[in-house]
């Protein structure tokens, strides 16, 4: 039995110890937001936070996270209680197929935790491990920089105008 914290709750895994964390979270704990993309830490679709750092869970044996704290996209925010990045993602229409976006957002959240005011180059460096085949890169960059700007002290907190339908 392997014990760790998953989205703030202490959990026990009975999976074989070499099972990658991704499959434990998806299939034993039924949290499907983190995705399988490559199985060799090349694409970032499986990105979770392990003790606050963005890690590729598809190559992380569950035995290696004993006692650690794991956060998945489900723990970052929910449709009713969005993380600012999730809000920016939805408002700016970042996702196309959407499959890689949980991983993208987890990488972005880890970046902003560490560096709340990253430069464009720092955003690119932090996000280079996450592949998006739909090519949402320009919007990912804009969304992260927008959230970073808004979180700065003295920043005017203007809600990004969400181009919703006109309510007549």
């Amino acid at each position: 039995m392997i014990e760790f914290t998953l989205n703030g709750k202490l959990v026990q895994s009975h999976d074989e110890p070499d099972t990658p964390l991704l499959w434990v979270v998806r299939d034993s704990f039924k949290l499907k937001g983190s995705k399988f993309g490559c199985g060799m830490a090349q694409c970032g679709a499986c990105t979770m936070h392990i003790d606050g750092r963005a890690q590729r869970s598809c190559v992380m044996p569950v035995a290696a996270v004993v006692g650690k704290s794991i956060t998945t996209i489900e723990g970052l925010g929910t449709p009713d209680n969005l993380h600012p990045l999730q809000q920016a993602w939805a408002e700016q229409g970042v996702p196309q197929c959407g499959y890689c976006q949980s991983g993208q957002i987890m990488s972005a959240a880890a970046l902003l935790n560490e560096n709340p005011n990253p430069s464009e180059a720092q955003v690119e460096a932090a996000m280079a491990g996450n592949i998006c085949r739909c090519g949402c890169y320009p919007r990912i960059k804009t969304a992260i920089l927008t959230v970073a700007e808004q979180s700065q002290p003295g920043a005017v907190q203007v809600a990004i105008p969400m181009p919703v339908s006109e309510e007549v």
Partner: protein
Amino acid sequence: MSGIKLTRRGFLKTTGIVGGGLLIGYVAMPGDNTPAVIPEAGAIAPNAFIQLTAENKLVFYSPRDEMGQGVYMGLTTLVAEELDVSPVDIQVEFASVHDAYRHPEYGVQGTGGSSSIRVHYLPLRQVAADTRALLLNAAAQDLAVPLSSLTTDNGHIVSNGNTYPYSDFIATADTMELPVGSPLKAKADFKYIGQDIARNDALAKSTGTAVYGVDIDLPDMHYALVSRSPVAGGTVVSFDDSAARAVNGVTDIVQIDSGVAVVAKSFWQAKKAIAALSVTWDQPALADYSSALIKADYQAAIDSGEGDSKSEGNIEEGLQLATKQVEREFWTPYLAHTPMEPVNAVVRIANGKAELWAGTQGPSTARGLVARHAQLPVENVTVHSLFSGGGFGRRTCLSHVSEATQVAVATDKTIKLLWTRENDVQNGWFRQASIMKVHAGVDSQGLVTVWDAARAGGDLTPHSISSLLPGAFASSPDWVNSMTVSALENLYDGWIIDGGGVEGLVDDYDFPNKKLRHTSVNHGLPLAPWRSVGHSFTAFAKETVMDELAEQAGIDSIDFRKRNLQGNPRLLGALEAVEQGLKDWQLAEGRHIGIAAHGSFQSYVAQAAEVSVEKGKIRVHRVLCAIDCGQVVNPAIVRGQMEGAIMYGLTAVLYGDIQIENGAVKESNFHDYKMLRINEAPAVEVIIVESDQPPTGVGEPGLPPVGPAVANAVYRATGERLTSMPLQPA
């Protein structure tokens, strides 16, 4: 190689729609007699697309599938406009498989060819307008007021200043006949069409709550992974599963058509077992081929001068009129699609019924495949379509559905069959490789006088038909299918030119004397439509030669194209929009601009790429893209599709190359089949050309110009004309 046929025949125009759908469309298909939608209690479903519930919730059943291209929002917007309800308030469901949801042009229920908005623009609006008219009729009767006194507002009937939810009139509407031919809104009255409204799937896709095929989890479900022949078409001679069976959690190991399947309780157990499995394969002729040999065959084919051809005007005269000539040959390799979600399928068979969960580009074919392998009538098969984690043409090929069904039948278990990324890169279907040749001339006025083009490579249509047939005709015997496919292969090899291999190569410009020749070469690697199909490589040849002709003629590359686009005002318009946009660009030292323009899927796209080359490495800094796709339904999605197609194209331009070694694909995962990443992504500016024409495609047309635009910029940077993809400066 299937031989270079020496037959010369008249040219039969074939269009490049996603492989062969048209053909199947002409064949009578079995009909569905059951209603497409059975409304819940207190609700009405006046047609196959709309349900109105007692809580005044409108449900839209989308006939097309969502793989990122935006139909989930786009088609909903069409319905919303005429129903007079905000699209974000409409609940969207993927349609079941039913005649009512067939693609109007393809005959099967499929998604592709950048066609969804184009073919549904009027029909879906009509269905919604008729539904609104029905509700108005019912309200007039219930409220005992003249019909002309009523209007609607966001899901409500307005009468004398009072508003009533649509659902108040369900009971009466249920007794009335659905009006037909109700007037559609004029463009000036559009509330939602043409507006930048945030995608209705963005929130789910930003919170990990959107459900893809890979997320389906059923009681007692088992994972299946398959060991397939490393060389396409290979068959199992024997296998040793003793070590694999010893892996904890493994429950079954069964042979299926495509190889040997390992079934286990968890993905990880199946993964360990498949590594322990030893299979001996009988390899087909492809096993004798490697990339160099394949390319040599293509070279021999194009050099032979043989094949099918079509011409207009007089090539000799055109050559005589030319004061300058250009002759170039181009190579474009095989490519994999690599959608982020590898293909997968969940199949459950119980009590003579089967269910499939999968995101596909062809749910009706998928249903047929389940029926075929489960030996059930199609009526007993339910398909649950889900979001697809990328398609790009890959999800038109559904062998994974056949595999999952075969494993479910053989093991009597509920099966989730998943392709690993290695399977995806090595065992799938590929964009066809090509050699193209263009010999063109220009006169002293800067007008192209002659365009003589040829292509040698694989024919897409027989491959597409072979993957569609077993599902389209679930009960036809295998031998009938293989006979049909082999007849088609012969037809394309020497009789007709497959549109998917040449579309765009002799098009767009005013070529007075032109010729197109095609030679079929087939080594047996399975082929599939890949985002923008033939245009994905023909634009490279066409736009590189146009650039070189401009240079030869001593005319600016935009001016030169404009002179030769007089008969194509919409592509001319897109190019002029790029010309205008470029006026605001300041070029930094060492940066160069390349231009390309190309029409595809009835849309018109021009691009400018700003590029630098340092130490042999190409860096694309900015792309300016103008598109004329007729009436725009959602500008944000159009811009997104241009951005995305440019990035998808750039992966191919900078890296894409599937190499064959002894018949097997050499690359295996993202470490050796590289993808464009965010630090290499250019900034993209999109100009949407104003148009009152009906809407046309946006999923694919943004891709074809990016390759030649970058190549033409590289020429300006280095003086070297690159004619092979991926682009590799010396």
